[in-house]
């Protein structure tokens, strides 16, 4: 017997125009049949007049604007602050799936830290030929200044935001490790605040794991890294170093500093004297022990790295070397999130931990290899090409959506400098319902959980689900027209 047309849920608002394709759909196991953990949300959306949701969306947008939850877009002469678009429909992750993500990411951060310690000391993994020596030494983010320098607890990466995608088979895979200065965690917290207001009952009934303790966890992580020659007694002085108000993530820097109750400093607020770092306060100079820096390696110390940087602190590297101040993350961690080194992470995990990776990598073509390069150059219109040292969606080519001109451009760039690029298949990222133009529409999403590594590894259950808001787009980066939505990890 067939159902009458009007009773079929997908013929009713807000799902009337909801579309399916080959990608994994986060909400539906098949058209019209929601997955068990999405059922209550699905029912709520069917029952709710679309007008209500639209009003909530307007209220949420206005609240983001008034709070100034904005980011700055580079390469745009307007130099504009833009509100980071927030989508009202939560992305829901069942507890069992989260457990796997958690153990996979814990394994990964442990292995990557061992890798960094190794390559900056004896280099066993290079001697054993697991990772090619020239690959590591040719990496733009490899810092020879770090050779032989011992960091507290041997932790190089204490704050990490890893990008996961869900493939059509339903499994999560790691797309990128962000081991330098990952951002976005403030949006995770801001989204949660908004969603609790919009869906209070639904939120309570679902049993969602809280994320509000992130700032506290971050602070204890940073405190655990207190330097060997600390001035401190019991509580080291922790500060957050920002490049300043023009940085795209400035809102986040102020937000985290405020939530942790620590000083937000700029390079010009700090100075180094006799290899000790101080900040300039109204009551005189005050010693600084741990710096959570949101400034890239290149700009940290003009005496050591980029000379014309005014964002950094002259002499900071020497103070770091002397063990008088700790930087988190350490300098030179970018070598482990180089997109070519990324291809070796499964081997890295096996080498140091003797375990199989819990979360898979995405297939990656190394363009330094002749046969792989030839294959890639012939299939540019089907692949995604990325510059190895870039992040934030800058410097990439998405084959199927590119013009012949762009492909010719990348072909030349790859031939000029094959080490600087990798290629990956165009992934079909999973799709989740988003509330756009007054109805639910499917959009591609990824997931960035945040991992902290101090005394031990901590993952706040949740993360930033980024959304490619443009129809059909696969790029979720905020700089490229992406938005975000709240991520609900269920308690059981």
């Amino acid at each position: 017997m067939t159902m009458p047309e009007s009773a079929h849920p997908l013929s009713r608002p807000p799902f009337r125009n909801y579309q399916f394709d080959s990608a994994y759909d986060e909400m539906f196991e098949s058209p019209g049949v929601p997955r068990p953990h999405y059922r209550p949300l699905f029912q709520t959306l069917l029952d709710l007049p679309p007008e209500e949701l639209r009003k909530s969306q307007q209220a949420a947008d206005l609240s983001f604007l008034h709070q100034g939850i904005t980011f700055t877009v580079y390469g745009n002469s307007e130099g504009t602050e833009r509100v980071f678009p927030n989508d009202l429909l939560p992305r829901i992750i069942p507890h069992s799936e989260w457990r796997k993500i958690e153990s996979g990411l814990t394994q990964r951060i442990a292995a990557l830290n061992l890798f960094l310690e190794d390559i900056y000391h004896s280099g066993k993994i290079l001697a054993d030929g697991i990772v090619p020596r020239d690959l590591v030494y040719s990496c733009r983010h490899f810092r020879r200044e770090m050779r032989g320098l011992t960091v507290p607890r041997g932790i190089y990466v204490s704050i990490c935001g890893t990008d996961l995608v869900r493939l059509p088979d339903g499994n999560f895979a790691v797309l990128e490790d962000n081991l330098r200065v990952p951002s976005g965690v403030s949006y995770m917290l801001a989204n949660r605040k908004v969603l609790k207001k919009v869906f209070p009952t639904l939120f309570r009934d679902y049993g969602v794991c809280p994320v509000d303790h992130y700032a506290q966890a971050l602070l204890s992580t940073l405190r655990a890294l207190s330097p060997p020659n600390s001035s401190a007694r019991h509580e080291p002085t922790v500060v957050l170093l920002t490049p300043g108000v023009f940085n795209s993530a400035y809102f986040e820097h102020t937000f985290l500093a405020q939530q942790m109750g620590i000083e937000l400093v700029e390079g010009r607020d700090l100075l180094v004297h006799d290899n000790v770092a101080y900040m300039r306060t109204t009551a005189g100079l005050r010693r600084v022990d741990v710096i959570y820096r949101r400034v890239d390696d290149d700009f940290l110390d003009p005496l050591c790295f980029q000379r014309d940087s005014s964002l950094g602190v002259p002499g900071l590297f020497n103070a770091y070397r002397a063990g008088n101040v700790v930087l988190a993350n350490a300098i030179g961690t970018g070598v482990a999130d180089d997109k070519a080194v990324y291809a070796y992470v499964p081997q890295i995990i096996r080498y140091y931990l003797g375990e199989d990776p819990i979360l898979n990598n995405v297939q990656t073509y190394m363009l330094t290899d002749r046969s792989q390069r030839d294959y890639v150059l012939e299939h540019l219109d089907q692949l995604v090409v990325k510059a190895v040292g870039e992040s934030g969606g800058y410097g990439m080519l998405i084959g199927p959506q590119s013009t012949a001109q762009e492909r010719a451009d990348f072909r030349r760039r790859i031939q000029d400098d094959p080490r600087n690029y990798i290629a990956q298949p165009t992934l079909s990222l999973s799709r989740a319902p988003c509330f756009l133009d007054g109805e639910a529409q499917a959009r591609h999403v990824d997931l960035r959980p945040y991992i902290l590594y101090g005394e031990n590894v901590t993952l706040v259950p949740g993360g930033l689900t980024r959304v490619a808001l443009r129809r059909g787009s696969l790029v979720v980066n905020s700089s490229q027209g992406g938005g975000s939505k709240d991520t609900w990890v269920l308690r059981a």
Partner: protein
Amino acid sequence: MLSRAADSLYWMSRYLERAEHTARLIDVDLQLRLDQSPAAGSGRWLGLLEALQVPAPENGAIDAETLTHLLTLDRTNPSSIISCIAAARENLRQVREQCGSDMWEQLNRLFLQVKSTASTEAGLLDSYVFFRAVQEGAHLFQGVTDSTMSHGEGWHYIQLGRFVERTDSVARLIGSHFNRLPHPVDDQAVESEEYLEWVGLLKSCAAFQAYCKAHTAELRPLRVAEFLLLNPSFPHSVRFSVDMVHSALRAISELTERKAEQPVRIAGRLRATLSFSQIDEIMASGANAFVDSIRWQCTQAHSAIHQIYFDYSVESALVA
């Protein structure tokens, strides 16, 4: 507290006070014009520009529309209302972690409101509403600040900025008013056209009602001058503002435990001058000289604050 943060709070507060002062001055001026003949009002534009320290437009156009735009929505004029509010917001944005979200949201909202006025066609057609909104926005921000922020070091820098700015701008306003008087001040009640000018002065300092309460609606120049310069309890008088500067400086000096005698001493001397001066003596030796001396000392205090708390030399700090 970081020196840079203190500096930003101080300037944020100064800019906001400046925006509020400018809004009130223009608001009062436009109202006053309605009661005056066009000829009587035209000379006052230059006085207004002088009181706000804004250079007159180069093409010499001094009509209401040009000047109102110059003083309110012109981003190229660093003293326009929109520039001041944008600067206040930018300063607060640089120290957002110092204040609660309520404070930030209030200032951000005020900025967005002014910005949207600037971008609409109608612009200042409804100028009365606009100037009220700026003044109310600034008052609301002060209220939110006083009731949500701890009255610690940061709050004292905000107080300091507000009252340094107020001392200077009220003193300047009085100076420019006396400059424009066609004859020496006597103690007779003023009348007709001139009456409106004196009402304008009082209203520009938000002081008309407070003055009437103290001295009735009979406006005598000496009493007005005394009220605006020496009244100890009216919040827009010069003396009140200097008292607030002095107490903020004392509090900061105690909180930072620094031997910062110079700013406190300068403010203390200024305070004593205003406490013990008589209005007839001031007038006898020239109101302008008196006002100029106050403004000069105010600048001295500002420089001393800057040198001791915001931009001290590292060598001196290392010795300590």
